[in-house]
């Protein structure tokens, strides 16, 4: 029963990450280089939460993201992040990707997939312009670099929050192949 509300901590940390990314994007607005770090919000629930709790945390994060970002239709991210979370969860437990290197690769790959998906879907409405792939490449490189810098900090922050609020430390919760 102690783990019942762990997903709330996860949502709080995800909202914090989205807010900080938007704050950086606000400053980078002058050079029109937005960062995309949404993939990072999926990884902690995949790694340390049971499936249902992780899914709820991800879907609420998706709604928060949609309400704050310039997404044309509210609810897009609900579908995209829901499918992405389930895919990553199944892949993670099926292939037993438990080493730190796998975690970093998972973060990078998840973020890249989401970044490309969002850019393709949302640009499709207005039609692709000649600079689309140039801009996409710039955003991918910038986001990859920033993820390498912050991913460990962010996962540790969530783990510390769990510890601070008297939950079990996530490292003791790891239950491979336990889709509940």
């Amino acid at each position, binding site marked *: 029963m102690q783990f019942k509300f762990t997903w709330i901590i996860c949502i709080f940390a995800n909202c914090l990450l989205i807010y900080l990314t938007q704050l950086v994007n*606000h400053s980078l607005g002058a050079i029109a280089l937005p960062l995309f770090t949404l993939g990072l919000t999926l990884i902690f629930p995949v790694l340390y939460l049971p499936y249902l709790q992780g899914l709820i945390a991800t879907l609420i994060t998706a709604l928060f993201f949609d309400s704050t970002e310039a997404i044309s239709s509210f609810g897009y991210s609900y579908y995209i992040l829901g499918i992405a979370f389930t895919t990553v969860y199944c892949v993670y437990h099926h292939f037993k990707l438990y080493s730190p290197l796998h975690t970093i690769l998972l973060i990078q790959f998840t973020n890249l997939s989401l970044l490309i998906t969002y850019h393709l879907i949302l640009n499709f409405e207005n039609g692709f312009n000649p600079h689309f792939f140039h801009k996409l490449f710039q955003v991918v490189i910038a986001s990859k670099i920033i993820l390498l810098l912050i991913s460990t900090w962010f996962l540790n922050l969530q783990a510390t929050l769990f510890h601070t609020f008297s939950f079990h430390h996530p490292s003791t919760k790891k239950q491979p192949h336990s889709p509940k």
Partner: protein
Amino acid sequence: MSKLPFSTFKPWLILALFLIGWTLIPTLIKSFCQLSFYQFQAPLWTLTSQFKDLQIYWSCRNHSKKELIEACRDLARRNSFSQLAVAENMVLKEEIARFEKLHNLPALDSFDPVIARITRRDIHSWSHQFMIRKGSKDGITPGAAVIYEKGVVGRIKDVYPSSSIVELVSSPGFRIAARFVGDNRPITYKGIDNPAFSKPKGHAENIPIDLSIQPDRPTMLISSRLGGHFPDGLIIGKLSKLEPSISGLFNQGAIELDPHLHSLQEVTVLIPQRH
């Protein structure tokens, strides 16, 4: 062939239930949900912006008295120029009103200006937006024109009680009717996304083929009264090169916008007056 265990499919079944549930939720509840999430985080951005203002205030306090006296002197000069311009403007307005009465013409659109600070910039490849610190409480309505000292910034997309979202003139979904200086024929302007580190640009379409432009003397693209949201004559950008469109009936060209468009701190919203 061995059967896959049920647990393999269980996550996908749960996900399907959640997605179907969300699809079946009425739009009214979704709108309420969106508004709730937005209102939850909007004060945070207002607070961030006010902290920024406070930071500017304290950095300004560090200026010496000599610098302040010089700034006041420059400001006084600007004020005297502005007062002259205001007086001239009043005379011109009276003149326009007199002609309107004389020829029995409908009155021109007039606007109430509302100055607002920018709290957030979202410059994504699919949309360029600003969040401003004024909303429906200040009389801002969707579709209202947003301008700054050098011309058009964009228009109001969404309005909330104490904040609004501005769609920028460089945003890929942005379209308005415009015209060139000295030519009253309307053309279509639309925003396009550009690579990072480059100047913001737009795209002009349906330009009459008889319009010629010299590369060393770019033509200014200005707003048109068509559409009703923008006053006539506000600068959008400049066009320096023309090329024929695919159909061959019209010309088209890239519009250079102001390079400081994405780093503005303050804008003015023009709220149409109701006659």
